C-alpha cells in the first residue's frame, strides 16, 4: 500500500485532533458521535485523493 503524503496526512491529523479537542472536556458519553466524525474525516480525506 502506498505511503501517504506526509504533509496531507499531517493536515488530516490536525483536523482529527481538533475534533478530539472539541470533545475533550465533554463529560457525557460521546464516543460514538466522535468516532463517526473521525470516520467522516478519513472519508473526506481519502476521496480528495486520486484512486481513493
Amino acid at each position, binding site marked *: *500500500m502506498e505511503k501517504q503524503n506526509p504533509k496531507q496526512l499531517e493536515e*488530516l491529523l490536525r483536523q482529527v485532533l481538533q475534533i*478530539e479537542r472539541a470533545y475533550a*472536556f465533554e463529560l457525557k458519553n460521546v464516543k460514538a458521535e*466522535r*468516532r463517526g466524525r*473521525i470516520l467522516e474525516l*478519513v472519508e473526506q480525506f*481519502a476521496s480528495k485523493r486520486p484512486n481513493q
Partner: protein
Amino acid sequence: MKLIKVKLFNFRQFYGSQTIVFSQDPKKNVTLVHAENGVGKTTLLNAIRWCFYGEVTSKFEAKDQIMNFEAVAENSSLASVEVTFEHEGKTYIVERHFSVRNGNGSRPDISLTAHEADRHGQLRQIDTPDTFVSSVVPRAMAKYFFFDGEHAETFSSETNARAVGQAVRDMLGCNVIEAAIEDLDYAAKQYGAQLADIPGEAQLSEFAARIKDLEDKLQRAQDNAAGKTAEKERLDDQIQEITDQLRDAEGAKHIQRARDDKERSLRSVQDRLRTAEQNVVKWVGTKTLPLVSRKLAVETLSFIDEESLKGRIPSPYNEEFVQGLLKAEVCICGHELKPATTEWKSVADLLRKASNSELMGRVVRARTRIGVLKELREDVPTVLENEQRKIGSLVAEQKDLEKEIGELGNQLKGLPLSEIAERERAREQLSAKRDAVIGGLGGVLLAVRQCERAIRDTRAEQDKITVKSERAKKLLGRREIAQQGGDILRSILIQHQEDAKITIEKLINNILEKTARRNYKFRFQNNFGMDLTYADGHAVPKSEGENQLMSLAFIAALVQFSLSRTEEAGGPFFIPGTIAPLVLDSPFGKLDQKYKSDTAHFVPKMASQVVLLLSSSQGDDAVMDVLKPFVGAEYVLVSENRGPRGEKTEDELVLRGKKIPTSLFNQPKNLTCIVEVK
C-alpha cells in the same frame, strides 16, 4: 485561575452558611487554614473538588454523606458549595447543589451551575457548566492542585509507578492524543471489517476473516491483561498494608526497614540491569558493522592499495585529457594524431587506464569510509566487554540482595512475636501469589504483542493482493490512512512522555537541591517508579521524611511543569497546562522539625496562590515564623460541641497574639465554624 472565595452551606460538618475569602495579594499569596484533626481540613479540600467535579479524594470517609447532620435533623433538604474564582480576567461563580426530596431513602438531586459575573455583578449563566469547569482546570490535573498531603505516600510507596505515570500523563494533557489514536485504530478496524463482504474478492475476504479473528483474540488478551493487572494491584495494596504494619510494629520495624532498604536497592539494580541489557541490544543493532565487516574492510583496502600500485587507481591519466588529445588530433609531444593510425591507437589505448573526476571521487569516499570502519573496529571489543562486565556485576549484586531480603524475611518469621510472624507469613503468601500473577501477566502481554504483530503482518499481506473491485481498493486505502495516522500519533505520544519524564526529573532534583539537607539524586525508573538515592548511590529508606519531601517535590514539579506547558509547547496534540491555585492538606506529613521549616520556605513559591490546611503539629511556631511574611489571609476551624468538656483538655491556638479556642463545649449544635483571624 485564582480562587476568590468558597461558600459552604450545610456541607458535611459545616452547618449553615460559612465562607472563606482567599488571599489575592501576589506577595502574600498564602491562605492559611488551621484545624485540628477531624475538624474539617480535608472536608474543605474536598468541598472544592466536589463543587467542581462532583468527586472527592479517594480516602475521604463516608463520601455520600454530603448533608450536615444538624441540618438533616431540622428537616433541611439542601446543601451546596459555591466557589468564586477569577480566570483569564473574568469572574465566575460555580455552585454544586445537593438536595434530598421526600425524606431519607430517596436519591438526592445533584446539579451544577456556573455563571460569569460582569463588573456590575450581573450574572450570565454558562450552558455547559461541567465542560466549562473542566476547561479551566482539567479534571485529570485537578487532583494534583487540590492535594491531600497526608496521602502523599501514594507516590513514594513501592507500588507507586502506576500512580506516578498517570500523574505525568494527566499533567501532559494526553487525553486528546490518546482518544485520537483510539479512534483512528477503530476506523482502521471498521474499514478492515468491511473488506470481508465484497463480492468476487474471495482472497481478500479470507484475509479479512483472519484479521477479524486476530482482532477478537487481541481483545480477549487485552481484557485478560487488564484483569491480571488489576489483580496484581490488589495484591500490591495488600502487601503494602502488611509492610506498613511491620514497619510500625515494635520488634519488627528495624528488620522491615532494613528490608525496605534492600528492596529499594534491588529495584534500582534491576532497573540498571534492564538499561544495560537494552544498551547491549541497541549497541549490537548500530555498532556491529565494523565487527562483522572486518574481513570486507581489510580486503577492500588491500584491493584499493594493490590497484593503486598497479597505477590504475588513481590513474596517471585523466579521461577528459585523453579525449581532448584525440579530438584535437594532436599528441602532447606535438605530433599529429590521424585517426586509425598506430599513434592514434596508442593514445586511444590510454583510455582503458584513464579515470574521470567522478570515479576518483568515489574511490576517495570508499577509502575514507573503510578507513573509519577499520578505526571503529579497534574499539569494538572494549565497548562490548565493558557492558558485559557491568551486566555481570549487576547480576551478582541482584543475587546478593535477593539472598539478603530472603534472610530478613526469615528473621521476621522467626520472631517470637506470633502476630508479626503471622503477618510475615501472610505477606510471603501474597508475594507468591503476586509473583504467579506477574508471571501470567508476562505471558498475556506477550500474547498481546504477538497478536498486534500478526494483525499488522496479515494486513500487509492483504495489501499485496491484487484487487479488482474499486470498493476494495477504496477500503484498503482508507484503512491505510487511519493506520498510518494512528502510528504517527503513537510515536509522538511516546516521545512527549519521555521528554516530560526528563523535565519533571530535572525539576524535582532542582527542588530537592534547594530544600533537602543532604545531596540526593532523584531518578525515574523506566516504569515511572521513583528512586531517591544518597550521593553514594544507596537507596534512601522509604520510612524517612525524605520520601515525603520527594512526594511534595513531585507535586511542586507537576505544578511547575503544568505552568510551562503553554498552548504552543503542546501543539495540537496535547491539552495545555493550567495555572491554578495549589490547595495542600497537611503538606508536611511526617517531616521532622528541620525539614518542616525548610519546606515551609519553599511552599509559597510552589504556585501563584497557595492554600495551606494545617493542624497545630503541622503549623508549629517554627513553620509559622517562616510562613508569616507570605500569609495574606488566615482562618481557624473551630469545633463546636453540644456535650460538656469533661476531662478533655482545652484546645487553643495563639495566632497574631490572640488566643483562639479550637474546640468549644456546651454549644447548641455540633458543627465546625470557620473563624477569620484578623
